[in-house]
């Protein structure tokens, strides 16, 4: 709670204003994650229970799942997890620059993961598997969708944190600009994801050829334009040279975010094994 200026050696593992020395935010996150264990525990159990007793019309997940895609998504999430871990590390050393790039990296990988999921959903829907078509669809979409929502919230949080690092040190009005930043960010993210997913679909259909890519590009000209303009704006917004109000003292914020992100990653590790791999036996 202390608002005194950061002394030169901040101890990131103990907060001397609290009784136990554990920073409040960290304790809060761990308690929340304990709760989230029950959340995902019951949700995954639901899926497994329905897998245990399949209905006769149940589709064969082995035929639907794409091991390549899932594996790719898993690695993507793993790398994003590493990035966020490094971001925490960097923030504790107070290097705002590397925090920013690491956060950006996490965001990119988080979005890539979401793109994979969108892509996968698209394939499943095309194969006729919908949330209401069968029990497998119901539990699969609900489980992975809930996880995906957690990832999306995580990406939003990461983005806000990223923008937060630009908060000027003086009390200049900054909120509106930050909101603009966020909106452009969101537009770019949505546009990029859409483009990538449609490119992936094109590649899947026609093979990895220039023609396929060009075809996908043609269909998404507007989006590509939006994305390019957006990137330019983001680049400008990211060029602040002024002093910012972000220091080692904020490491705990990054760390809380990191805890959340890692946990989602770990949940995915569980999902990867019990929802995907087990079906291949």
């Amino acid at each position, binding site marked *: 709670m202390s608002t005194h200026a950061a002394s030169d050696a901040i101890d990131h593992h103990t907060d001397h204003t609290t009784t136990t020395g*554990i920073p409040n935010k960290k304790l809060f996150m761990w308690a929340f994650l304990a*709760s989230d264990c029950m959340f995902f525990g019951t949700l995954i159990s639901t899926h497994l229970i329905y897998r245990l007793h399949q209905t006769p019309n149940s589709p064969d997940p082995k035929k639907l799942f794409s091991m390549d895609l899932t594996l790719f998504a898993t690695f993507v999430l793993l790398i994003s997890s590493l990035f966020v871990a490094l971001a925490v590390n960097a923030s504790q050393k107070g290097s705002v620059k590397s925090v920013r790039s690491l956060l950006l990296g996490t965001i990119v990988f988080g979005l890539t993961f979401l793109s994979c999921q969108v892509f996968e959903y698209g394939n499943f829907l095309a194969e006729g598997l919908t949330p209401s078509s069968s029990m497998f669809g119901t539990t699969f979409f609900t489980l992975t969708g809930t996880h995906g929502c957690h990832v999306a919230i995580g990406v939003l949080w990461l983005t806000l944190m990223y923008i*937060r690092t630009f908060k000027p040190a003086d009390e200049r009005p900054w909120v509106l600009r930050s909101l603009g930043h966020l909106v452009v960010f969101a537009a770019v993210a949505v546009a990029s994801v859409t483009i990538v997913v449609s490119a992936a679909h094109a590649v899947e259909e026609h093979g990895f050829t220039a023609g396929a890519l060009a075809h996908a590009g043609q269909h998404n000209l507007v989006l590509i334009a939006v994305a390019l303009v957006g990137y330019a704006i983001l680049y400008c917004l990211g060029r602040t040279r002024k002093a910012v109000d972000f220091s080692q003292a904020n490491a705990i914020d990054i760390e809380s975010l990191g805890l959340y992100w890692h946990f989602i990653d770990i949940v995915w590790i569980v999902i990867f094994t019990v929802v995907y791999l087990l079906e291949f036996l």
Partner: protein
Amino acid sequence: MEASSPAAHAGTETHSAPKRSWLFTRPTAKTGLVSWLTTVDHKKIGLLYGISALFFFLVGGFEALLIRIQLAVPNNTFISHQTYNEMFTMHATTMIFLAVMPLSAAFFNYIMPLQIGARDVAFPRLNGFAFWVFLVGAIILNIGWFVKSGAPDAGWFGYAPLTNKAYSDQFSGDMSTDLWIMGLQILGVSSVIGSLNFIVTIINMRAPGMTMMRLPVFTWMTLFTAFLIILSFPAITIALVELMMDRSFNTNFFEAAAGGLPILWQHLFWIFGHPEVYILILPAMGIISEILPTFSRKPLFGYPIIVFSGATIGFLGFGVWSHHMFTTGMGSVATAAFSLMTMAIAVPTGVKIFNWIGTLWGGHLQMRTPMMFALGFVWMFMFGGFSGIMHSAAPADAQQQDSYFVVAHFHYVLIGGSVFGLLAGIHYWFPLIFGRKVSEFWGKLSFWLIFIGFNVTFFPMHFLGLNGMPRRTAVYDGNMGWNDANLVATIGAFILAIGIVVYFAVMIRTYFKGEMVSIDPWDARTLEWSLPTPPPEHNYDVLPTVHARDAYWYEKTHKAEIAKEHAEHAKTESAHGGIHMPSQSWFPLLAAVGLLIGAILFVNHLFLWAIIGGGIFVLAVYFWAAEGPGGYHVHLDGDDSHGHDKH
């Protein structure tokens, strides 16, 4: 109220540098509507919880009276089947989620930080948010009364597939079940957020010297309750999500024809539901564990064991859920396992009872009203616990499940237990909170009316159950041998209602006209009583240092030592810039409003529009984060030498 407090006439000064956008101008009103809407003071939030809870207690009680009138005589036509079903659904939902839980939360908020010697909870704005979200949930649940679809009517545990669209929605657009789902979901969010806050507060915000094994038992029970909440609510959250998916997006979770398992709902619900009943009782046990020592003038007997048994009850409580499902054909092994686990809970619970008696033993019992309610609690809870044990024997329960025997059991533990405990707590802490004391005569009169009315209402229900009367039945025939007991129960309910009315009338009168008291009217033992009444906004002028378990009792017996210590600490504290207090904020309220708008649109199946609400919510949270915790310093008039420092 704050103004009348002796120490609170204080200079304040904001923390942060001057140039702030109007968006982030922190509200500073200390009285009036705005002060309540933007408050982050745990005591004000506690009062908000308390008042809402008591209001809903009356509403729930009113619904109960309608139930009792309908059942007074056989084949009654006072209300229709449909209305009756709405009544018991809403009665239970209201009593559990809108009355007892928030009333417990009121005590957690008001008393717990005082007991651990803190100035506020760990996340003050989050605390305000939890309350507003609670109110949103309460509103959503009760909208049904005012719209065409009617109030929720699927029973308080909403067994699938009765909640599926096919059965709740057969001939008309019925959104009452959607309201129920959304209301509970939102209440869950509120409870979990509040509980996370309490956990962090208790672990991290204790005054120096307040080790865990010196925590007052009420604080311990707050901690356990908070843990039960954060660990059990996720199960119902998932169940409600699945149900919501079924209703809104045509998934199959509980669609038997598509392979859905309605029994899964029961498991998920009771994985939450059984811990929930301990969520309802542990706070009351905590209150009782404060009152009995105070009025016996002795420390709590077997403190460590009481604490440990609280933890055991909480933990075991997660392993017994299927005792609500003994009649669902689980198979012998599962039934036996849950039967034995349930019985095991009697041991730690018994330990508490024994220790409370041990506390009385050899004491000087002062029979004040809170003490009467506390003793009433011990008797009635024990009685209800015994019928719980009868349920836990699965073969016997096959005859009792869904009969009035269960209704008797749970009202004994819920009213005789939770409600008695909470009513005792109101009496006990009233002088601290409002500086006035309830008249003993009227207090005791209300106690006896409630006690007698309660027993006359619910004792006969054991017989009704054993005589085969199923619960949730709007009418019964006159040839079943149930007429007398039902009539007696209805009469009892009215005695009980009179008792409650007396109780409330006395409270209101006392608030305005009651006998004024000064510090520590009961000669109590825990820290909160060292405060002036009502406590100032910053609670403690000087943060206390705790030397023993009954901290205030120790202070009273070591006056000189403590005075010296206080003086020293006061000096250091003002050298550090005075007392730091968190700033008020609009954003918790705003975020909750966003939630309300989104939820209402969602239950009307306007999914895209609901995003508006979500947007308001996200924006409010964003501003909340951007405005930062803020804060200002209070400088007590007493030590002017340190004056209004520049910061």
